[in-house]
């Protein structure tokens, strides 16, 4: 054991030696096995793939946010040499069903709009051509006559009587409305001597991966099988939904996963692009590639982030003890509702953050407007909720005139209180929140920076400090998508992940994964390290491959910081079966007792007897080729598979006063930022930025650091720059990288990262998810730090992004 005792009993060093003899590979800072192909330019992203006879598609998007389609004349486009077909909504309606949805009801979405368009950029036609240039030329020749309709862009206006309806069949723009109450909220507010209340605004931004969404459809008319190569195939076990859209038997849909150049949520259950590529291929009778260009990705990829208006309040005692939280949110979902209100279900998993708050009320109105629909973005709604909570906590500290660290410390859930049941019913499995706080304070020498800030302030400089916390729930069950409804239509409770292990006759281990897993995370490295741990082989000797959906076991893919936890569980399960078989074969051959065998250096041998061992290759050759050497009841071959289900989830209660356990493996983090703001230009400079995260057992500290830093910088974009802007007709004004500013290398601080490890008692090896944590803190910390820096101006930050123009407006007001 190399575990050191930190402040408050925190375990600061990695757990390299757990009780049963030590870990050799999990926790090691290894280079990623995925890297070499990317470094050589051999990543094989979707647009790099060419199939024989492949045609290319381009799509035409609507220039209007809300308009009736009067007519579409495709004749000129069809006449252009090289054009194979022009496809409109009518053609689609004749051949395909609407797109899958997890929360639609009357809200029907087609691959290509029919009758009317509901947002700027909605697809109205697609062209299949010999070449992408020709397909784009042909799009310009399509003549669409629109009758513009009044637009509704603001969710409050959308809720008024007489507002234009986005979906007439629904009869209202309020798609969904509900208040959840946990505990005695009114009483707690009435009894508490103090409270703060704020109206907060989180604007629409997006994951914006460098690689857009794309797919290649490949229809085989002979067998009727539709093969779709796509850079997402999350939810292997939900693909029957996509088959239903294409009106083919699920057995005849074959999705081939293609690694993606980033997702951040934007490829989470990506449905529209694969469905379209599949259908276009069925129409053309040959392979068709459709890859979004940047404009199409911005305008019509479904997956932009939350767009929320809050009225939120926190009640507390004079000594700063938090009592109750009230959140009222109007969420501008845009024109469709693919994930239903799941992004608020997600927020409810950790709505009280790391604090002991007993009473919570959460109201949501999910409103439809003439904007692109929301989807997933790193944090899936919980990052927004964390910003709201941390803003209220800062306001409470100001109200009481107490230190912002002190008020947080006073309310933290204690290390001895786990597993901790939150008011909504979700539990936090384990943690040492005080320990993480002390580590981050020490990492930056907090008192030093407080003194520096005060000194700078005395000189008239605008230096500010932010200190914020966040929990990071990981590994969703599926109930957050439907517990909103009293009588949901469909109540899935599965979100499994699978792994198959095979040892080939030469002793090499091949692992097959069963969902789209390569989005820039490190699935192959994680799996190799876990396999190495189980069999004591070199991680880079392990080959990781991906099954296509016809061969896949149930899988859910990355998202909700679930993949590392779940795939480790699946690999552990398959390993255990396989090791059992190896032990039996080896015990027979070595004339030893199975219990006396251990796995060591690519071999299996008798503990304490170095000479008595068989290499995995010897065992494998026997298993494949020498049937008569095997125990009589044993089958030939050396493979095993395992499907790992969510290890800890329960159903919500009928009356929804208890939502059950649905997101229980909860990491924890603190960030500290010191900024200096230039009141004349609004520029924010970073003097110090430190993060400490506890994600349970760390598999690979190097790739975990990458996730934390990358997430933190994405959150910085959300906090300072990113927001979709619309004109009064609902047209997106910044649908390009020129006008939608992503953080560049000049915009980001040096970030130092520290780790603690409080293993989860419920997961394989004690791992917790960690892919979203960084982005859960930056919006809150930059709000806090900039507000502190602008203290002389009495600014309260309630709206993101905090642009330079906004800062200048405050300082010159």
């Amino acid at each position: 054991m190399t575990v050191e005792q930190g402040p408050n009993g925190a375990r600061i060093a990695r757990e390299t030696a757990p009780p049963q003899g030590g870990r050799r590979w999990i926790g090691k800072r290894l280079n990623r096995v995925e890297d070499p192909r990317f470094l050589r330019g051999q990543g094989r992203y979707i647009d790099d793939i060419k199939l024989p006879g492949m045609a290319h598609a381009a799509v035409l998007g609507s220039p209007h946010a809300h308009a009736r389609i009067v007519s579409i004349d495709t004749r000129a486009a069809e006449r252009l040499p090289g054009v194979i077909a022009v496809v409109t909504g009518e053609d689609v309606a004749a051949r395909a069903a609407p797109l899958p949805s997890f929360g639609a009801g009357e809200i029907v979405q087609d691959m290509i709009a029919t009758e009317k368009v509901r947002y700027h950029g909605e697809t109205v036609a697609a062209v299949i051509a010999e070449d992408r240039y020709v397909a784009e030329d042909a799009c310009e020749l399509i003549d669409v006559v629109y009758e513009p309709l009044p637009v509704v862009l603001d969710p409050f206006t959308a809720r008024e009587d007489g507002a234009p309806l986005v979906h007439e069949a629904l009869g209202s723009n309020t798609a969904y409305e509900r208040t959840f109450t946990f505990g005695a909220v009114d009483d707690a507010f009435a009894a508490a001597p103090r409270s703060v209340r704020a109206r907060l605004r989180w604007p629409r931004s997006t994951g914006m991966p460098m690689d857009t969404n794309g797919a290649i459809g490949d229809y085989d008319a002979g067998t009727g099988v539709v093969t779709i190569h796509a850079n997402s195939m999350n939810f292997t076990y939900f693909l029957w939904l996509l088959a239903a859209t294409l009106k083919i038997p699920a057995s005849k849909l074959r999705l081939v996963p293609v690694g993606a150049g980033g997702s951040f949520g934007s490829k989470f259950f990506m449905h529209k692009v694969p469905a379209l590529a599949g259908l276009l291929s069925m129409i053309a009778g040959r392979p068709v590639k459709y890859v979004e260009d940047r404009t199409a990705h911005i305008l019509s990829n479904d997956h932009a982030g939350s767009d929320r208006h809050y009225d939120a309040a926190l009640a507390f005692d004079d000594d700063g003890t938090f009592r109750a939280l009230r959140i009222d949110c109007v969420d501008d979902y845009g024109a469709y509702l693919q994930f239903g209100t799941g992004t608020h279900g997600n927020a409810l998993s950790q709505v009280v953050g790391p604090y002991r708050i007993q009473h919570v009320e959460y109201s949501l109105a999910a409103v439809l407007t003439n904007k692109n629909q929301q989807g997933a973005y790193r944090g899936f709604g919980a990052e927004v909720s964390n910003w709201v909570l941390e803003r209220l906590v800062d306001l409470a500290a100001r109200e009481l005139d107490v230190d912002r660290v002190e008020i947080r410390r006073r309310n933290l859930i204690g290390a001895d209180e786990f597993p901790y049941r939150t008011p909504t019913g979700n539990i936090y499995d384990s943690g040492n929140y005080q320990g993480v706080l002390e580590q981050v304070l020490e990492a930056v020498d907090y008192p030093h920076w407080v003194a520096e800030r005060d000194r700078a302030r005395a000189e008239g400089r605008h230096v500010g400090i932010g200190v914020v916390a966040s929990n990071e729930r990981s590994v969703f069950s599926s109930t957050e998508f439907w517990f909103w409804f009293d009588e949901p239509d469909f109540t899935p409770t599965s979100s499994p992940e699978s792994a198959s292990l095979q040892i080939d006759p030469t002793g090499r281990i091949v692992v097959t994964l069963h969902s789209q897993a390569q989005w820039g995370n490190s699935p192959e490295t994680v799996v190799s390290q876990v396999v190495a741990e189980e069999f004591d082989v070199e991680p880079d000797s392990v080959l990781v491959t991906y099954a296509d959906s016809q061969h896949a076991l149930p899988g859910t893919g990355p998202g909700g910081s679930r993949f590392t936890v779940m795939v480790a569980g699946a690999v552990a399960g398959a390993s255990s079966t396989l090791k059992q078989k190896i032990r039996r074969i080896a015990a027979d051959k070595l004339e030893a007792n199975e219990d006396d065998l251990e796995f060591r250096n690519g071999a299996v041998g008798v503990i304490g007897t170095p000479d008595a061992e068989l290499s995995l290759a010897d065992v494998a050759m026997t298993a494949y080729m020498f049937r008569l050497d095997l125990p009589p009841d044993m089958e030939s071959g050396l493979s095993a598979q395992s499907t790992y289900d969510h290890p800890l989830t329960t159903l919500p209660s009928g009356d929804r006063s208890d939502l059950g356990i649905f997101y229980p493996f909860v990491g924890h983090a603190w960030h500290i930022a010191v900024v200096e703001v230039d009141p004349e230009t609004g520029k924010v400079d970073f003097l110090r930025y430190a993060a400490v995260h506890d994600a349970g057992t760390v598999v690979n500290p190097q790739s975990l650091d990458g996730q934390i830093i990358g997430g933190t910088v994405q959150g910085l974009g959300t906090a300072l720059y990113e927001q979709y802007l619309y004109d009064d007709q609902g047209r997106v004004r910044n649908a390009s990288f020129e006008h939608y500013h992503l953080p560049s290398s000049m915009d980001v601080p040096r970030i130092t990262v520290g780790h603690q490890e409080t293993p989860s008692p419920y997961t394989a090896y004690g791992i917790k998810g960690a892919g979203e944590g960084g982005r859960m803190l930056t919006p809150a910390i930059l709000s806090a730090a900039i507000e502190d820096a602008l203290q002389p101006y009495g600014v309260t930050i309630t709206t993101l992004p905090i642009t330079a123009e906004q800062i200048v407006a405050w300082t010159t007001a």
Partner: protein
Amino acid sequence: MSTAAGQRVTVHLEVNGLWREAVVEPRRTLADLLREDLDLTGTHLACETGVCGNCNVLLDGESVRACLMFAVQAEGRSLLTVEGLAADDGTLGDLQQAFHDHHGLQCGFCTPAMLLTAHEHLREHPDGGTDEQIREAISGVLCRCTGYEQIIASIRAAAEAGP
């Protein structure tokens, strides 16, 4: 812009030390020439409007946006793409190895352009220069995954390891 059907021109250029030839439409971009005609798909397109720098290649040693140039503009010139950075047997070059050792990539999409841009920077500043100079050198290449920290560390490490 639409070109008369059938109009084609022949382009000759040196790519990673080999002279190559392709017959293309005059409007074909350099990026599409590389990706579609020469099957060098390591040059990636993320915006096609000259902003993200993910398509950067080195033309006579200078970084250029391959999405903004027409293929015909590269006639007779010499190009280095990511495919030219490793040894013929695939062994990573020093800069590539430094990115591998310091986790300078996640999804790998921006990586070819980052490597080439860093390559250009290190030629001009063999000692790596200051961190500020490294930041500035790569500021024209957008990465959405890494937050740049580990990319900067990789370039610094490559400089310290020396040529």
